[in-house]
Every structure is written in C-alpha cells, then in structure tokens.
C-alpha cells in the first residue's frame, strides 16, 4: 500500500442539540421538549487518575481559555483554585490510610458536576442564564448572565466563578459544543489513562460497576460510585476507592444538597418574586457598572429569607414536582 499524501479527514460539524432540548431554563419556564435526549455522563475514575492535568490542558485549549502564570505555593495544584478560565482543576491530597499505614495520593479532578437537580440554575435570577438540556448538561449562557453570583451560592460543590473581566459566571459546560456534534468533552478525550470517560449515563454506571469490582479485588473494600442523590444524581460521577469517605478527596461533599435557602428562595423567584427579581436584576446591572463584581452577600441571603417568609405558600418545593412548562 502506498500512501504518500496526508489522508483527508472529514469532520461533522453540524450541532444537533439546542434550546429545543432545554428541560430547565433559569428564572423562566420552558415548553416540554418534543424529544428526550438520552442522559449522558462523564465518569471520573479517581483510582486510574495519574494527576497529569491533561484534562486541564485540553480544557484550556478547547475552550480558548488561558490562565495567568502563577507561583508555586508548596503543592502541585496549579492554579490554586477554579477560576473563570480554569473550569477544571486537579486537586491533590496526600492521605495516610489508617488501616495499613500506606500513603495514598488522592487526585481528584474538580469541576462542575452537572447535577440533575442543579442548585445553580435554581438560584439564578437571570432568565436563560443557566439552562439544562434533556441529556443532563447544565450550561451557562453568558449573554444572559448578570454576574450576581447567586449560582455560586446555589452550588453545593462551590464551582461557578465570576469573571472580574466581564462580570459573568463561568463553569464547565461539559463541552456542550462538542456533545452537540456527537463528540465527548475535551478532557475525556485527552485523558491518557481513560480515568475520564464519557457516554450515556447508563453505560457509565455499568462501566463504574466493573471498575468497582476490580478495585474491590485489589483490597479497596469500600470502593464505590459517587452519584449523590441529594442533588438528584449527577452527570459527572466519580469512582472512588474510598466511597465511604468522599471528603478525603479534597473536600468532596459527603452528601451534597442544595441549600434550603436557595430551594426556598427559588420558589419565590419563580412564583412570587419574578417581577421583583427582574427589577433587582436591572438594578444589578447598574450596580455592576459602577462597582464591578456583584456577589451574593449575607444581606442577599437575609433578603431572600425575608422574601421567602413573606411569599404566599412559601414552602420548600420538591424539585421533582416542578412543572416543566
């Protein structure tokens, strides 16, 4: 066989996912989608992760983001936290296992968990700034973002970050632009050891079951899947060798839940306080123009509580019973 030319490769670039697939839209209602996309998930197998940061690198490259060159503060975590540009971050923990005295280097890729019941979206007062597709992708639509920071408050995983440059919130999109053309997220594609894999949620759960079996055979009796029910499950899941102790992995919440405050206040925005919040949002834009970043404060929380208390029928809502339309 003679090949003396660079063989051509055709790329399909037609995006086939869009607003018609929204099942939630912040501070607004969406019609019942005509089709239901199959749920997707990214599975991060911490036991296969070598902490190489290929995911961070691929994320920066795919999303055309760049970060400031920082400094070393005595650890391998760089940058030192998630930022509006660093949407995913390896967090390194040196943990000594009490049972056998062995050192374990726990390395967790941190980033948006794409909760089935997304606290950020529920907290968001800006119509259409946060959307959820029927396949589970939770995406920020920056054109609609007012930079109020409520999503940060609403997130049980402390993920969204507000940009000082444009006062908008940023987090992992699960590479919605790639998924829309049938490709997996950039991090999952790059991951050398396939510690990060992507597929339908069912496939990922089945794959996780295999991995857990393997880990148990290697003496990790508590190996398990992290798909926390407190947020309705997530579309980013972890295989943990010590699933009984999520917090040892750089503070992964043991049992994440949306703050009751946000749950309650969410009810207000949707059923009672929408007009009011619209005014607040408009005021927020003016406020930002003057003073820059606008974050949730204690006062905001108090205000939310007050509104909640005053709102008719103000009970925490069961998110599963929220009307789709």
């Amino acid at each position: 066989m003679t090949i003396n030319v660079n063989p051509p490769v055709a790329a399909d670039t037609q995006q086939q996912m869009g607003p018609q697939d929204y099942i939630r839209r912040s501070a607004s209602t969406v019609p019942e989608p005509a089709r239901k996309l199959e749920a997707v998930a990214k599975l991060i197998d911490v036991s296969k992760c070598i902490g190489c940061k290929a995911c961070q690198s691929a994320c920066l490259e795919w999303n055309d983001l760049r970060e400031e060159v920082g400094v070393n503060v005595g650890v391998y975590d760089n940058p030192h936290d998630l930022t509006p540009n660093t949407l995913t971050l390896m967090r390194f923990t040196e943990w000594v296992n009490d049972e056998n005295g062995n050192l374990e280097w726990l390395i967790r890729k941190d980033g948006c968990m794409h909760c089935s019941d997304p606290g950020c979206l529920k907290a968001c007062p800006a119509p259409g700034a946060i959307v959820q597709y029927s396949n589970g992708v939770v995406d920020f639509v920056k054109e609609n973002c007012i930079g109020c920071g409520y999503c940060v408050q609403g997130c049980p995983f402390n993920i969204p970050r507000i940009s000082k440059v444009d006062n908008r919130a940023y987090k992992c999109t699960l590479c919605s632009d790639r998924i829309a053309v049938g490709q997996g997220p950039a991090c999952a594609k790059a991951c050398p050891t396939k510690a990060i894999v992507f597929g339908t949620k069912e496939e990922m759960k089945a794959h996780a079951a295999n991995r857990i079996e393997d880990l148990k055979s290697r003496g990790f009796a508590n190996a398990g899947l992290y798909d926390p029910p407190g947020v309705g499950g997530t579309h980013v899941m972890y295989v943990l060798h010590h699933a009984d102790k999520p917090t040892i992995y750089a503070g992964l919440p043991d049992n994440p839940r949306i703050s009751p405050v946000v749950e309650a206040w969410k009810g207000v925005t949707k059923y009672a306080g929408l007009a009011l919040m619209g005014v607040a949002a408009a005021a927020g834009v003016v406020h930002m123009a003057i003073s820059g970043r606008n974050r949730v404060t204690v006062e905001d929380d108090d205000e939310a509580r007050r509104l909640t208390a005053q709102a008719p029928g103000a009970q925490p809502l069961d998110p599963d019973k929220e009307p789709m339309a």
Partner: protein
Amino acid sequence: MNMEISRRNFLKGAGAGVAATTIGAFGFGEAEAAFVEGLRAYKLAGTTETRNTCPYCSVACGVIIYSKGDITQGTAKAVHLEGDVDHPTNRGTLCPKGAALLDFIKSETRLTKPKVRRAGSDKFEEISWTQALDEIARHMKDDRDANFIERNMDGVPVNRWTSTGFLAASATTNETAFLTYKVVRSAGIVAFDNQARV
C-alpha cells in the same frame, strides 16, 4: 473496555457516517439549524486536518492538527490540535503537554529571524540567512583547515576534525538526522552527539 466505549461512541468523529450514528445513540434527530442559540459554535468547522506526531516524548502519539489557509499558498496556520483517535498507541488521548501543543506552535518565543551576537556584545542583532550561513561556513572552513588531523603519529590516516562539535537534535525527523549525519561525518567531525543521554 472503557477505552472502547469512548472510541466507539464518542471520539471517532472521523466520518459523517460515524458521527451521525453517534448522534443517533443520544437520541438526536436529523440535522437541524447550523447555528444554535446558547451553544458555542463548533470551532473546527471548515478546518483542514493533518496527521502529525507529537514532538515530545517517545510514545509518539498521533495528533491531528486543524488548520486554516492553504499550505501550498503559504497561508496555512494551525488553529487547534487533538489526539488522533485512529492511532493505536494513544487512541486520541494526549498528555498535558501534547494537549497544549498549539501553544508550542504559537509560542511567543518561537524564533522567526536569524540573529547574531558579536564577540563581547550584550545583544543579538538581526542578520540575513545568506550572511549568517556564509559566515558560519567560513568559520567552519577556517577551523577545519587549521585543526584537521590527517594522520596520527604512526602515519595512519585518521581524518579527524576534533575542534568543532555538533550536537544533533532529538525531535527532528530521521530524514533531517541522516542529512545531518552526511554533512557532519563527511567533514570529519568526531564530537558528534545527540540527546539520547540527557
């Protein structure tokens, strides 16, 4: 097994047929609008894909460089780079260095002009290729003629040029390597080495 999942369903993306199948697996219907509200436009649309190899370590991962412009017209520029899913070794994956190769290609510290630093100077100055190559060839000839060892003390022809050395690269192609070999050896250089050890 895990790798196969990713390959089969999501990463192939190499042909329209494959991609359509994948989308079908997600429950997507037929093609809809090209521009989709709320989504970032797919940035590889309209790019040329070229197979290449990562220049860093010896795993030699296959990469695909996405470029715009026409290389035959001198206008081709890389805009993105990803792992080649068809490559048996890396299967589309890349390490943190390979995944950032675009920043290597576009590094601010890429060299774009020949320069010379004169004896005692504290700065580089630009020089034309012709001038630089002429001067270097003159240096080589003068040094070779002054120091070449034709015969050793026993009168045996040894043909050594020991006073100029050549360190060959480690990421150039075999073809560069052999051309370099021919030039360096024919001149009689013995202090010839590469980066195999360091």
